[in-house]
């Protein structure tokens, strides 16, 4: 049986990445005028964590990143936590057998989960309109999403490349362990279950 890695490293790395990405997203990215579509860094981080390191890591990272998102730019507390938690879980379960956690398939996963995320926002806007007398039609919301989604998805995939490399090689777990076996208990799932 392999010796378990200490927990401090993943917690510290997730905390640093979560805070840095959340702050960059709301301070630096809006200043980059040449970016017509802003990548969603905390969403990308949650998706890749769920995909690469399993549901438990994804779940907690999604909750933490979602809290920062709610705190920094959300209308309410809890919504970002809910969405990013499910984004991470979707990334873990979606096409699991097909992708087999191959690193570069994480980029495909980013696009797919971004699509689901945008769809969830459309449904929420439809069910919970902000002004009671102004209820947008579902068709109107879907048309808007169809216009913005492809670019948003591609922007997330493009910014997902460096984040993927960061998590893979400077991430919470030793890359050698990841190369050997992802499901043997050395990373996310097994580690948290042990605790």
């Amino acid at each position, binding site marked *: 049986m392999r010796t378990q890695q200490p927990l401090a490293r993943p917690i510290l790395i997730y905390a640093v990445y979560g*805070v840095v990405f959340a*702050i*960059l*997203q*709301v*301070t*630096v990215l*809006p*200043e980059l*005028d040449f970016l017509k579509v*802003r990548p*969603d860094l*905390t969403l990308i981080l949650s998706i890749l964590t769920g995909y690469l390191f399993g*549901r*438990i890591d994804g*779940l907690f990272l999604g*909750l933490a990143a979602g*809290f*920062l*998102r*709610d*705190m*920094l*730019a*959300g*209308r*309410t*507390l*809890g*919504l*970002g*936590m*809910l969405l990013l*938690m499910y984004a991470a*879980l979707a990334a873990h379960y979606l096409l699991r057998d097909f992708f087999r956690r191959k690193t570069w398939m994480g980029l495909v996963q980013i696009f797919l989960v971004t699509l689901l995320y945008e769809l969830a*926002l459309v449904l*929420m*806007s439809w069910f919970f309109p*902000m*002004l009671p007398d*102004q209820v*947008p039609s579902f068709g*109107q*919301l879907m048309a*808007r999403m169809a216009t*913005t989604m492809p670019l*948003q998805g591609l922007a997330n995939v493009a910014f997902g490349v460096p984040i993927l490399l960061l998590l893979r090689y400077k991430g919470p777990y030793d890359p050698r362990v990841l190369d050997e076996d992802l499901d043997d208990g050395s990373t996310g799932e097994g580690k948290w*279950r042990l605790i």
Partner: protein
Amino acid sequence: MPRNSRSPIYFIILVTISLIVLVIASSFPGSIINQLSSPFSVILEPIQKSVLNVTDLVRTGSAAVFEGAQIRRENEALQLENATLRNQVTQLEEAGRQYEELKSALQLKDKYDRYEIIGGRLMTREIGDWFDVFRIDIGISDGLSVGETESFAVVDAQSRLVGRILSTDATSAKILPVIHEGFSVSGKIDSVNGDLLRVRGDYDLKDQGLCMVDQIPMTASIHVGDILVTSGLGGIFPSGIEIGEIIEIRESLSVQNRQAVLRPSVDMQNVSVVFVMKGQ
């Protein structure tokens, strides 16, 4: 084994229900739940300010490098203008003193005298749909506390409407911007006996930085180029704050349902310092 594989599902269901309750509880205006973020705001504020300062430095530095010659020319022109303005300031200071004396004597009431103006720096901007409010570095510790029926107008340095305060925690406040689909304000055409109408955010227009004008009275005379200001109805926004300019009239089948498109006067992308108008 079955017990192990089921327990995460129960946990996820429990977390989901808890978060839904949290969302509902924190969506009420003035909810104390929103203050849960206070400790984190206190911790994150210095980091955010450092990042903002670095961003400003980089922007200023790159501008200095790329626009050096232009800056030098502008500097010379500004020095000349500065000398002229200094002379004017001296004259205006004297005129100001005379005005204050006159004002006291005649007991003139400045229209914003009832409001305390609190300045704040924009800390964060929107991420996307549903995460689209701004955050500023003043909060409950500065006397801002939003209630169920109480909020505050937010304007820029030129007294143009930016939005209203949505929620506050110990050291920060969230602003619902004027282009947001949840924003609504009673406005009027900036003229003598200008007609009342409603200015609100719109799903489709907000991406272009525009607002919708509706509830236009049948008898109202509204034209492209008209400036709209707040009417003062509703109690949150003082009257006379500039909202924006009409850029398009949308005539529908009936005159009752006329709509117009408004371009807000405030430059949302470049505003960095805002002022909260707190009623006294």
